[in-house]
């Protein structure tokens, strides 16, 4: 079974995504210089999540892939989140 379409991503799109990633990087450096106590790490992670989304979707081609691959990726991140949350059920309540 071969791919239905060989979608060729234009060079330009990759370049635009890079610009966005650079902007987000500088944004995360800026936002963490603001004193927000425990929300600082959340802000930095939020930027990181957006950057990852761009890398996954465009650089790693998920946007153009079959749906089940996206579902698998989502599932793996979900498992990771679940594991970290459950671990914190121990540490948060000791």
């Amino acid at each position, binding site marked *: 079974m071969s791919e239905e379409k060989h979608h060729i991503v234009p060079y330009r799109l990759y370049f635009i995504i890079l610009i966005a990633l650079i902007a987000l990087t500088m944004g995360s450096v800026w936002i963490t210089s603001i004193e927000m106590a425990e929300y600082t790490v959340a802000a930095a992670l939020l930027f990181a999540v957006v950057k990852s989304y761009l890398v996954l979707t465009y650089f790693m081609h998920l946007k153009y892939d079959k749906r*089940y691959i996206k579902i698998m990726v989502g599932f793996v991140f979900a*498992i990771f989140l*679940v594991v970290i949350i459950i*671990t914190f*059920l*121990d540490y*948060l309540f000791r």
Partner: protein
Amino acid sequence: MQTSSAVNGANYLTYQGKFKGLLGWILSTDHKRIGLLYLYSIAAMFTTGLLLGLAMKFELLAPGKTIMEAQTYNATFTVHGVIMIFMVVVPGLPAVFGNLMMPIMIGAKDVAFPKLNLLSWYLYVAGVILVLTALLAGPGSPDTGWTFYAPYSFKTGTNLLPAIFGAFVLGFSSILTGLNFLVTIHRLRCPGMKWTKLPLFVWTLYGTAWIQLLATPVVGITLVLVALERIFGVGIFDPALGGDPILYQHLFWIYSHPAVYIMILPAMGAISEIIPTFAQKHIFGYKAIIASTMAIAFVGYLVWGHHMFTAGMSGTAQYYFSLLTFIVAIPSAIKVFNWISTLYKGAINIQTPFYWAISFIFVFMVGGLSGLVLGALATDVHVHDTAFVVGHFHYIVFGGTGFGFFAAMHYWFPKIYGRMYDKAWANIGWLVFTIGFLALYTPMFYLGIMGMPRRYYDYLEEFHGGNILSTFGSWVLATGFVIIVANLIRSARKGEPAEMNPWHSKTLEWTVSSPPPVLNFDKEPVLGEDDGPYNYK
């Protein structure tokens, strides 16, 4: 009936390709040959682990030192555990029967990545050698238990690094097998083989493969951290440097609990093939069994803390893990109901695989029910780290995966070797083995409740009687094992030639010759609307 086929009379056993003799086997990328390579290596490791177990039982025949001191006993149960867990029951059914049968069951020529498959076996062998060097070279065999708990694992003077490295390599082997099977099942099903027409054994291999893939890396990196602790003193689990040993336990069990589902799911899958075949009836609740399989695989990730109830976790964590542990029992129970319901009004054909399947259901249930005692916080406090736990996991892992393995071995034996085993001896072997098994492990429940600790080479006089029965049981079990294996070895060479489909099963592997041709099918099968793995008339 035809006993060999296709290419100039060559089946996968007799075929000689670019390499002859032994090289033709250890360089082969044929999934069926790789399956047999795994069978023989795993059988060898099981025998080694069994001997270690027998040594432990011999030590426990009487209180005080019987044949070994405490240090030797600690090393023995450590190596027994490492071998049985990482080299036998985790690779177990997937590596042997998954490789031998799964591609044929889905109508494929081979797995998606045949060379990677062979690499998996090489990694298995490398891992075994590494662990064995831990025993033989250097400052002596590891004595931490197979669980390698921190901080002892980085403080012990024994030879931990090769053992850890070996376990890491074995983990890699497991990951690659899981990866291979996932891609194979997704991409190589023959025309008409929809997901809803897959045999249940394949479904369980699918769920298992996801666990192999996602859980194993966690223990891999955790063991690396222990190694780094030993070499560089990094401090991650060292309380003196701010580390938390309980965090080690979390990370360890985040893999090792899902690992038990790697062990049991394919065994359940084999039983799900055997029961309909020997009842000549459609499996009851095909979709429910699939849903239960995936539920076990997923929920199995959420319960790891039930190994840690007395370790020092928060109360919240304890309640949470206990609740989830009870929930994860439900899909397994659903499977048991479905198997039994399949038998109702079936045309039962009592054969060796059926005996193994029925006894599997019994021992699995006992093991599972004893798990509820452990899953409930109040009772767990009483029996944690006692012989009760040892009884529980041997019932469910040895009983579950072990009986499942023997069931699968006898079920697929005629297909694999093109010969039938001697049925009388096979049944005798089963009976002796099962009696030995029950005598060996049942006393442990009692002994544990009465307070006998696990992992001790000594015990109080009041536990003597139960231990005598248990040790005798180990000898009976070993005898049964010898009978079974001797029968299989002899039958593989000299058994009666077997038909294509001696059990009248409906899955695809029974439509090719016994033994199968090198490329499995002369013509790619196509499944019609009315075809199905359990469409018995």
